[in-house]
Structure formats: structure tokens, C-alpha cells
């Protein structure tokens, strides 16, 4: 019975594993929860879902699975489906509800077993038999202070269904929200710790090993401190169609600036040509030839290009195609040269991935990049960082 539920989650692309499933069963066996769907939802989430970005996926899968289900897990007896079809909804008054005797949990389970054996046919209403719409502690759609719900659709007296149908965790799904903090966390994947520079730190392990080899005479060893040595060269497209993405790019930029010690950044417009600049206000007076940039920064730099790659194909392919000045070499040539110098490179595109195939210029640049173009979403950023780390 629960195996179906497990496979359903698996089919919904949730990363669930057998071990976790066994833990869930163990939890059910240890009576961590009462037999309420509400608690089952929370317990299954705590055991099976290990990342809040998957909460929304889980909510949807759970809702889909339990919408039409006629069996509730943990019940030994088979109950014919037609009993449980919700035929009538009986609204009890507050007085009547108060009248219902409160049975203890164990007693309730005992009685349920007894009655399952006693009961033969379908039953509706009334206050003893299992069926729907009544006020017996067992069945569906009824009202009893400590009742067990058996199958069927929720009668609306419960609050449980709301929890997963609200989809509170929607914005934690990884393709959507991108805050400065999230970007920082994604960029952190690029960290590479290494020891280089002056030997300043006392190497305890080395000293002990050295001393032992030295037959007990102290042999003090020092080593350089460990720090993040990743170097990043960032090229940002600015102006024109990029104005729509300015907030996203600002966040990306501020996160990158605080995350990397060796970060060099330059701006370009639409496509890379033979000049880039550092200060957008003085873009015409203070330009850096691309060749100088490539000479100055070694090929251990990782190259990140940020741009929407949305322009006329001529601006990429034709010499003189730039909208700003007369470029002697085409954008494609300049970009190819840049990529040759920096083999570790990615292009981040703030346009959503589904639009890419409709824009010719994006296709061209993606080909030039050798498909290393990623959307500027959390998930895309992670893929890009993984690519850079390879």
C-alpha cells in the first residue's frame, strides 16, 4: 500500500531512497503519529524530503496521490470502496458533538477491529457502523472528537488538506527566487582552497612527523595559510535590452563581489568586441582593449559572461556590425579568441531558458559557447558553477 505512495513520489522526481522509506515505515510502526493524514503528511516529509526546495514538489505529489485514494495506510482490513463513497454530509449541532463520548485511542482501535468483524453490509448515517456521514467514531465525513477517518475525500471538517494545498513553499522551488544570499551560496560552490604564498602557519602534523624521523630532535615546519584561490573574470552586458534585468544583475554582481577575492569585472554592450570598459559613465573615454585584458589576466581565471544575448545576428557575425562603433573584427571572432584563452567559461543568460530557441542570436552565441550557456536562475547558476569546476 505505501509502496505505491513511495513510487509515486519517485515518479514525481523527488530524490527519495529506499532507506528513507524504511525509516518512514519504522516511524509508523513505532506509533510516532496517530492515524491522521495530517500527521502522516508531516512525518513523510521529515523522513523523505531533505531539501526545502523540494517541499513544493512534495506538496503537489502528495495532493495528487491522496486526492482519489480509498485506503488509508495502517489499516489492516480491506473495506469495500462503495461503502465509503461520500453520499451524504450530516451536520451535527454543537450539542450533539459534545454528546459524543470520547473514546481513548486504544479502545477506539479495539472497537474498530470488533466492528469490522461484525459488520457485513454498506452503511450510512447512524451512530455505530462504519460508513459515511454518520457520527460513529469510524468512517468518513462524520464528526467524532477522536474519530478515525477511513478513506474517501475529506469532508471539510478537517484542516489537514489545506496544509499541502496552500503550497507555502512554492517560492523555495529552485528555479524561481534569486536573492543576494541565494546567489552567494551558489557562487560559493566555486571555492577552491589551496595553500600558496609565504609559509606562516605552524604545521603541527608535519612537525611531529619531522621530529619523529629526526629521532626526537625538534624539527619545526611551517606552511602557507589556506585560502580561496579561485580567480574570476566577469563580463557584464549593460544597457539596451539588459535594462529589464537590471535588478537581477545587480544582485548577481554584489554577491560575486563579496564572494571572490580575485574578481575582475568589465562591461560590454550586446556582444564582446575589441574594447570593454570598467565604468559605465566613462565608457567612451576610458576603454580597455580586449587584448590587454587577455594579456593581464592569466588563463587560470574563470570567465563568466552575463548577458541576454538578444540582438541582431549581424551584430555578432559581421565586422562593423556593432551598434556603437565601427568594429574591425566581428563579435564572434573576439568572443572565440576570449574563449580560447580562458577554457573555463560560461555564459549566464537572464532570459528564461524556454525563450532561447526563438531567438536567433541566442542560438548563435550558445553555439559559440559550446552550449555552456545557463539561465540566471538558482538552478542554472549551480549548473554553471559545476561546469566551471570540472
Amino acid at each position, binding site marked *: 500500500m505505501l509502496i505505491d505512495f513511495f513510487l509515486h513520489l519517485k515518479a514525481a522526481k523527488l*530524490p527519495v531512497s529506499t532507506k528513507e522509506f524504511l525509516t518512514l515505515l519504522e516511524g509508523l510502526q513505532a506509533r510516532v503519529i496517530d492515524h491522521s493524514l495530517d500527521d502522516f503528511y*508531516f512525518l513523510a*516529509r*521529515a*523522513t523523505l524530503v*531533505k531539501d526545502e526546495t523540494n517541499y513544493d514538489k512534495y506538496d503537489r505529489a502528495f495532493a495528487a496521490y491522496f486526492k482519489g485514494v480509498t485506503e488509508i495506510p495502517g489499516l489492516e482490513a480491506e473495506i469495500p470502496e462503495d461503502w465509503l463513497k461520500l453520499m451524504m454530509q450530516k451536520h451535527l449541532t454543537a450539542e450533539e458533538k459534545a454528546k459524543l463520548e470520547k473514546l481513548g485511542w486504544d479502545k477506539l482501535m479495539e472497537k474498530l477491529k470488533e466492528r469490522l468483524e461484525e459488520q457485513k453490509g454498506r452503511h450510512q448515517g447512524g451512530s455505530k457502523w462504519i460508513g459515511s456521514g454518520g457520527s460513529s467514531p469510524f468512517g468518513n465525513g462524520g464528526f467524532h472528537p477522536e474519530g478515525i477517518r477511513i478513506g474517501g475525500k475529506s469532508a471539510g471538517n478537517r484542516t489537514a488538506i489545506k496544509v499541502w494545498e496552500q503550497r*507555502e513553499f512554492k517560492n523555495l522551488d529552485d528555479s524561481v527566487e534569486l536573492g543576494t544570499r541565494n546567489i552567494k551560496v551558489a557562487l560559493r*560552490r566555486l571555492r577552491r582552497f589551496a595553500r600558496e604564498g609565504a609559509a606562516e602557519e605552524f604545521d603541527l602534523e608535519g612537525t611531529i612527523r619531522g621530529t619523529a624521523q629526526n629521532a626526537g630532535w*625538534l624539527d619545526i615546519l611551517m606552511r602557507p595559510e589556506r585560502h580561496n584561490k579561485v580567480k574570476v573574470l566577469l563580463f557584464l552586458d549593460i544597457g539596451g535590452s539588459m535594462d529589464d534585468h537590471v535588478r537581477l544583475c545587480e544582485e548577481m554582481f554584489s554577491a560575486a563581489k563579496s564572494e571572490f577575492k580575485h574578481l575582475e569585472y568589465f562591461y560590454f554592450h550586446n556582444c564582446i568586441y575589441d574594447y570593454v570598459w570598467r565604468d559605465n559613465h566613462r565608457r567612451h573615454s576610458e576603454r580597455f582593449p580586449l587584448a590587454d585584458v587577455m594579456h593581464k589576466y592569466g588563463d587560470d581565471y574563470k570567465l563568466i559572461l552575463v548577458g541576454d544575448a538578444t540582438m541582431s545576428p549581424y551584430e555578432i557575425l559581421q565586422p562593423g556590425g556593432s551598434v556603437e562603433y565601427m568594429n574591425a573584427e566581428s563579435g564572434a571572432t573576439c568572443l572565440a579568441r576570449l574563449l580560447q584563452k580562458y577554457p573555463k567559461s560560461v555564459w549566464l543568460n537572464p532570459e528564461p531558458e524556454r525563450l532561447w530557441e526563438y531567438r536567433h542570436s541566442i542560438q548563435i552565441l550558445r553555439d559559440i559557447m559550446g552550449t555552456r550557456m545557463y539561465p540566471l536562475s538558482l538552478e542554472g547558476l549551480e549548473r554553471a558553477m559545476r561546469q566551471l569546476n570540472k
Partner: protein
Amino acid sequence: MRFEGSTNYVATPDLKLAVNAAIALERPLLIKGEPGTGKTMLAEEVAAALGLPLMQWHIKSTTKAQQGLYEYDAVSRLRDSQLGGVDGGRVHDISNYIVKGVLWQAFEADEQTIILIDEIDKADIEFPNDLLRELDRMEFYVYETRQLIKARRRPLVFITSNNEKELPDAFLRRCFFHYIKFPDKETMQSIVDVHFPGLKQSLLKEALQVFFELRDVPGLKKKPSTSELLDWLKLLLAEDIPPEALRSQDRKVSVPPLHGALLKNEQDVHLFERLVFMARNNR
């Protein structure tokens, strides 16, 4: 043994269930959530509520998994051997130089203990992997003295993470997981009631209003969280600010008093002041 919340910690039903499941099955519980939503507090409160001793292990970027088990203090042994003679016999017994870590102490305790591994994501990426067997089987081997340390009572392990690094799947599979979501208005109200029982209702209402509006301001780098709200309320009380000051009657928009407690970043303060200024001009 069940955890039902405590007098100074408001736990939502899903959090209680996760804690109780971890208690019943004796598995580690991994807690994530926005900074300042009470992740570390939880372990302290559970320990207090269940009356169990709490052992804390705060993780830094330099922490190694080994340090939680034990450390071999080679330096003092080396020094003792170099000095010779002073305490001759001591040097030959290696167990004199083994310093017990948090996990060893917990495994050795006669009663059940609670271990808090705080901010596990700060450590090196290999850190959680190095603890797999220790947390799963609750035992480890001491190579120096060739002994196996096994937990007498499986301790309850609480692990907090700020999501700065992804944790390995093998590690996650062994834990329960709970994400503390940011409290809604009603939960927030009960949290504040727990911390400031005597707070005037009118002040609280206005303060919560201002707080949730502030969280909705787009583009803030660091949104204020529960602990910031509690600090701010403390300041408001200390300064004896009347509720009217938070929302002035003449419908003029103003920067809330003592906003420094809520916004911790000068760019955020700047952005907020600019928004207020713009809103004022529009009227």
C-alpha cells in the same frame, strides 16, 4: 518521551512532530531555516523540556570531524618526552594524551544526552561524510589505543544548517529533516507573547504591522527575522515609545523609530529611506 513545546519556545505542530519522530526513532534531526528563526534555541529548549544534558559542538570553517570524537595531543607528549625524566611513566601510556571530544563524552554518559552540532554547513565539504558511521551506528574506533567506543544510550542529535553548503546525500538519508518556515502573523504573535508577556496589545499590533510590511519591501538584502523583531521590541519598550509613534495619525509615512535593530545593512536602510521619501512625495 515527547516534546510538547515549552514555556519560552513556540513550536508549530509540524516541528513538534519532527522532533518527536527523531526522539522515537533515535535518528539525527537536521534543522534548516532563515537565520534567526530559532534553530539553535530548539535544541536547548528540547534539552530543558526533557531534562536531558545538552552537549554543544559549534562548527567553524576549520573544524574537523575527528575533533568531535577525540584528539591526540601529540605536542604535550612530545614535550614530555623531550624533557624526559620529569614524569617518565606518563609518556609511555598514549591514553594520557587523548583528549575526548563532544561525541565521545556523549557516548560515554550514563544517561541519554542531547548533542547539538551547530552550523554544520560552516565546515569543510567532507565534514558530514566523515561522521556518517558515527551518527548512524553511534560508535567509533580509537586507533591510538585500539578500542571501540560505543554509545551506551543513543544520544539525540540536533544538527543546524544555514544552507551555505550542500550536504551530501548519504548524510541526508540518515537524518530527519525539518525546514523552519518564517512564522505567520498568529505564530509571531504567540512568540512575542512568550517573550514579552506584559506588552501592550496596541503597541504589539502596530509593531507587527510595521515589521511584516518591512519584510515585504522588495530588494532588501537581509530581511529582518524573528530575533531582530524581538530585539526591536525590547528597544521600543526600553525607550517607552507609544504605539501612536509607529503609525502617525495624519497618515504621513515615516521611518519607524529605532529601525537600526531591524535593518542591518546600510544599503537596506538607504533603500528604505528612499522608498519612504518617494511615498511621501506622492501624497
